[in-house]
């Protein structure tokens, strides 16, 4: 946006000051994530730049923390558990959440607001309270420290996101489309798969992504409900930061930042596809 020629000096000064302030805020947002990338290649076990690193001496850099991550059984077990737990929690949450969203979007849903409030409550209730409740209850029924317990807990935490994203895709849905399909002779299942599924698919996938990330990043409930056997990456990171802080954590963090860049790209593509399908042209 170029400044028009009639702007006064004061406005000109303010324009550039404002841009600078915004630049600093964006710097605050993004710089911490960037800084850890070179630090994770540190040759010595410190969280700071060594003189060798600053002079770009190759001896100051090493891959030892990445090597540690890929060979250490604590971390490898954590990666495996994270993927398994997130996978099952995502499938369950997506199935249950999509069904519920379809129900909530029907014209004659009784007690809509109350039920919606209850269904998204896992997102509202502070995690420490969910964790406390699940810890007491799951211990009582013998689910504490089991994979099933962790998967159930993560499913519960993930469903609100699926409900919200799928409900959002159905918000502008014209119900005469299903009636049109029926009048053209399609059976209800056929109508569902040929008309409704293509419309809600972007919502379902982005809800599933949210559910996956929720489980993959979740750290409060897992600390209470899981034991060492079910350790996930966040569990391992938390105990790592608390006990023996080593740059392996920075290597893991760097890998996770890369994973979130991929996830970000995926959601962006989904959003564009969803807008195109619903005929919303980008402004």
């Amino acid at each position, binding site marked *: 946006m170029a400044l028009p020629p009639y702007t006064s000096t004061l406005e000109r000064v303010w324009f550039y000051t404002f841009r600078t302030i915004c630049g600093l805020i964006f710097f605050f947002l993004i710089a911490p994530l960037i800084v850890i990338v070179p630090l994770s290649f540190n040759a010595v076990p410190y969280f700071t730049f060594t003189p060798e690193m600053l002079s770009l001496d190759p001896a100051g850099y090493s891959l030892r923390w990445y090597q540690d991550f890929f060979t250490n059984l604590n971390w490898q077990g954590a990666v495996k558990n994270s993927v398994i737990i997130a996978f099952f929690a995502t499938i369950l949450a997506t199935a249950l959440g999509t069904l519920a969203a379809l129900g909530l979007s029907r014209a004659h849903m009784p007690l809509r607001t109350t039920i919606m409030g209850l269904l998204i409550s896992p997102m509202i209730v502070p995690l420490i309270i969910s964790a406390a409740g699940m810890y007491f209850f799951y211990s009582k029924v013998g689910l504490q420290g089991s994979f099933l317990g962790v998967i159930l807990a993560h499913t519960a935490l993930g469903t609100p996101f699926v409900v919200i994203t799928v409900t959002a895709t159905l918000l502008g849905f014209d119900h005469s489309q299903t009636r049109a399909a029926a009048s053209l002779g399609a059976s209800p299942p056929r109508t569902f798969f040929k008309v409704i599924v293509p419309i809600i698919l972007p919502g379902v996938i*982005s809800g599933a992504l949210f559910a996956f990330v929720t489980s993959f990043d979740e750290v409060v409930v897992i600390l209470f409900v899981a034991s060492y056997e079910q350790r996930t990456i966040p569990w391992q990171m938390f105990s790592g930061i608390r006990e023996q802080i080593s740059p392996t954590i920075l290597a893991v963090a760097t890998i996770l930042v890369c994973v979130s860049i991929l996830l970000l790209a995926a959601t962006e593509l989904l959003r564009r596809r969803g807008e195109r399908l619903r005929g919303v042209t980008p402004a």
Partner: protein
Amino acid sequence: MAAIAPGQLTTADGTPLKVSFARALRRSRLKALGLVLPLFAFLLITFLVPIGDMLFRSVENQLVGRVLHRTVAALADWDPASGELPGEPVFEALVADFVEGRENRTTGRVGVRLNYELGGMSSLFRKTGRRAKRIREAPYRAAMIAIDERWGNLDVWRLVKRESDAYTASYYLAAVDLRFTAEGSIARQEEERQIYLRLFGRTLWLSLIITTLCLLLGYPISYLMATLPVRTSNLLMIMVLLPFWTSLLVRTTCWIALLQQQGVINDLLVWTGLIGEDNRLSMIHNRTGTIIAMTHILLPFMVLPLYSVMKTIPPSYMRAARSLGANPFTAFVRVYMPNTAAGVGAGSILVFIIAIGYYITPALVGGTSGTLISNFIAHHMQVSLNWGLAAALGALLLAAVLALYVLYDKLVGIDNMRLG
């Protein structure tokens, strides 16, 4: 079927239209409910019942009445206000309860429970538990007082009597720095044990500071993104969304690397000569660390609602204000800012709700002065094992969050909640 009045509308098979319509409506409702039911049942079992169960712990108090059941029954007609010790039958019952409790190892737990209310009870119960079985005959009262003279103390008996009810308010009183006095009235906790009100105050105050900082940082960049062309603002949006999608532990780790005494920022300041080597700033494991890290983590939650509201304000409003003679500042304050009120409200409440229940970041970078109410709940669950108090603190926190959530719902509506 009721007789059909002449002139009434009917369907082809003769059913009154009203009846047929009601039937169709009911079927449609049942279908909708049937779709929601699986998730509802699932959440009920895995989430809602556990939370209810935990909240119940904040008033539940059956331990004393169950373990000391004979004593409690015998105490039924003892008047705590009489100023006299309970009679011989009560002591006889107490000895029997202790002998039984010794076998089941339950009296120790009663001692721990009563110790929350009165110091020294735990040791009294352990000591008595070891020796009570030697008492075989009357006089029981004298024998018990011989084991420990505290059994001759009226306050101990008043406490046992008070805590023998199945439900108690004492956890909630403890959570707001109150306590029962020995006489059973409610009083302030002693000065050095008053921590929770201050903790709630600190949690609210820090959340308020973090919300304000998020608003101050989020408003300018949202405005910039809303006024720039889409292509540029989408690029800038990535800088907001990338932290949003990154694990919060990763972001907390980043701040530890940056803020610690031997960290990047301190090194930079020493290198530029702004501060000396000896007085490196301590920016972590204290309140500053919590505020900086949490502001960074919660900023996207402020920017996203602000941006979506600002996006809907037509630029012509500002041009109209300018053409009517307002200077840029007046136009912004009088025309633009009132239009963003909904976004400011939504973002602020969202950030505030998340901040007051935050656990991980304060636990890792908060030290002692930067911890919040959540950290104390976790402490009582894992370290002190005072689960009743943890539940009472949790219930108060939950009440605060739900009240704010209702406000959010009124302001924004949960249907309009957007993600990403």
